[in-house]
């Protein structure tokens, strides 16, 4: 098990080194966004690397195992709808990035609204929200690394994993993430097909014995599954789908990926294929149901995929599966590090030159990884809960983006007031467990956010302003990122 695991992790490091070939001298934009040189294929792998991380490989089957029906609906639904959202919005963001010379979300908002204060608000809130993402990945990695049964303290293994993510970032920035993502996706596809395939094959053999007859046993499981399609559950599922799919377009690393695309056509082509990747979800679901049906007892729900792999596969193959899940966490970690670093080095601290941005990006990356490991050690929360907090926070910049697109009279002050109201409401509703008829807390915050922003804009409209679309029309033909 260990040799297979180490071989794959070492191969990923070699791939990261290979990605640097021909790009030895990287500027800040090359480092953070690969200077807009990725075609549809590399862009696709990079963006699915973000979507299908530890949360998908461990959190999704874990959630299915523990919660059932409604969980599947919203988790699958929001990732599916994110593809058409990015298909429509992606080219706009790409062009806005070129127009303003932006490498981050706050770059765009600062330039469009001509406000340093808004840049700081956007950067600060994005940084705070990205911390749980690192924690989420390390929580998943902790589960995986514990399964290796090494006589080493878990925190040391986490530090080693953090060191790997740091190396990817230092070696070649976003380019390394994209290349490692290819290896990760090939392995992930194989691992899910293998575990689910073997599970389904064993289903027919063992199910009849353990379940008192295949049909009867399966029907009993379906009836006992905690699906709970009650009214509130349905409202939550639908509202979460909408919020998180729309919020997907406002994730800082999504913007970095969009800016890495060679042209808007590459973004579109990748989104056409992207939904097909979701066909892995029924397979992950089968693994979770297999574990329930056959009485496998994972120590925690999030262990279910690994527990099933351990029950069905030879040891060396389990090593491959564990390395694959580790890679899926590391790829996302490295891309989050590359999203959070420019937020600090370009937006919070302004005026750093290219070399300074790259140098400080490495310091920020190391600090972020350290903070995420500490978060993992002190937080025992369920992975998917952290995922929710991230999305209902990150979606609060949506009204500002729509204002930039369509509402010329909305100024920076109105946007900041709206975001403040949105954040406060969303977190209050969530933390105080206020009953809003099952609606996602983030959506409630989003409604108040928009209302406050529009009211403030009506009272103090921005003068001499134009929408993003107007500015794009007025701009000469645009060059690509870089």
């Amino acid at each position, binding site marked *: 098990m260990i040799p297979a695991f180490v071989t794959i992790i070492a191969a990923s490091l070699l791939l990261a080194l290979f990605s640097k070939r021909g790009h030895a001298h990287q500027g800040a934009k090359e480092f953070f966004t690969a200077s807009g040189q990725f*075609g549809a294929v590399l862009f696709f792998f990079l963006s699915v690397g973000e979507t299908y991380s530890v949360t998908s490989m461990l959190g999704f089957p874990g959630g299915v195992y523990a919660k059932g*029906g409604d969980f*599947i*609906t919203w988790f*699958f*639904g929001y990732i*599916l*709808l994110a*593809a*058409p*959202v990015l*298909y*429509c919005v992606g*080219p*706009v963001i790409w*062009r806005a990035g070129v127009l303003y010379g932006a490498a981050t979300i706050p770059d765009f908002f600062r330039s469009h609204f001509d406000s340093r204060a808004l840049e700081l608000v956007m950067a600060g809130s994005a940084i705070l929200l990205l911390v749980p993402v690192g924690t989420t990945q390390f929580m998943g990695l902790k589960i995986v690394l514990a399964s290796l049964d090494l006589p080493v303290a878990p925190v040391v293994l986490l530090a080693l994993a953090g060191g790997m993510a740091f190396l990817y970032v230092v070696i070649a920035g976003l380019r390394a993430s994209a290349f490692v993502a290819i290896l990760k996706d090939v392995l992930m596809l194989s691992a899910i097909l293998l575990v689910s395939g073997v599970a*389904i094959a064993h*289903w027919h053999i063992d199910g009849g014995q353990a379940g008192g007859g295949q049909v009867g*046993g*399966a*029907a009993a*499981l*379906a009836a006992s*599954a905690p*699906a709970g*399609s009650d009214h509130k559950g*349905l409202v939550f*599922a*639908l509202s979460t*789908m909408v919020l998180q799919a729309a919020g997907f377009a406002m994730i800082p690393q999504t913007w970095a990926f969009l800016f890495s695309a*060679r*042209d*808007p*056509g590459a973004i*579109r*082509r990748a*989104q*056409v*294929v*992207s*939904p*097909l990747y*979701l*066909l892995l*979800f*029924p397979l992950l*679901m*089968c693994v979770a*149901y*297999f574990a*329930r*049906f056959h009485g496998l007892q994972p120590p925690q729900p999030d262990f279910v995929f690994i527990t099933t792999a351990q029950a069905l596969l030879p040891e060396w193959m389990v090593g491959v599966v564990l390395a694959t899940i580790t890679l899926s966490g590391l790829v996302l970690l490295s891309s989050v590090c590359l999203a959070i670093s420019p937020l600090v080095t370009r937006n919070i601290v302004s005026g750093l030159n290219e070399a300074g941005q790259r140098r400080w990006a490495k310091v920020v990356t190391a600090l972020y990884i350290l903070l995420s490991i500490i978060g993992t050690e002190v937080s025992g929360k369920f992975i998917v809960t952290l995922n929710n907090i991230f999305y209902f926070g990150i979606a609060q910049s949506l009204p500002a983006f729509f204002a930039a697109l369509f509402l010329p009279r909305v100024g920076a002050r109105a946007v900041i007031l709206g975001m403040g109201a949105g954040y406060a409401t969303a977190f209050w509703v969530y933390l105080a467990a206020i009953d809003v008829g099952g609606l996602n807390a983030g959506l409630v915050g989003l409604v108040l956010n928009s209302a406050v922003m529009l009211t403030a804009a009506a009272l103090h409209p921005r003068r001499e302003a134009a929408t993003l679309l107007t500015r*794009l*029309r*007025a701009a*000469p*033909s*645009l*060059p*690509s990122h870089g």
Partner: protein
Amino acid sequence: MAEKRTEDGLGSDMPRSGLALLALGLPVTLLFGLTLWAPFASVTFLGIRGSIWCLFACAPATSLCLLACNRLFGTQGKGRGKGTP
């Protein structure tokens, strides 16, 4: 090579209302419809309700929808949308 500008002054790859309606509206309608309608809820395969299997069919359907959008509205030529002024 300078990119071609459309009549409204935007690039040919920028979303228009027709594209947004089709690319967003169809998958949303399909997904919401199947979630609310929950067809074949009483049928199970591998212990999983038929309605959930139907939900997963939205993935290839969305892909087809976006492919149709690309054919109807999108740019086909690789590299269009870039180019120096």
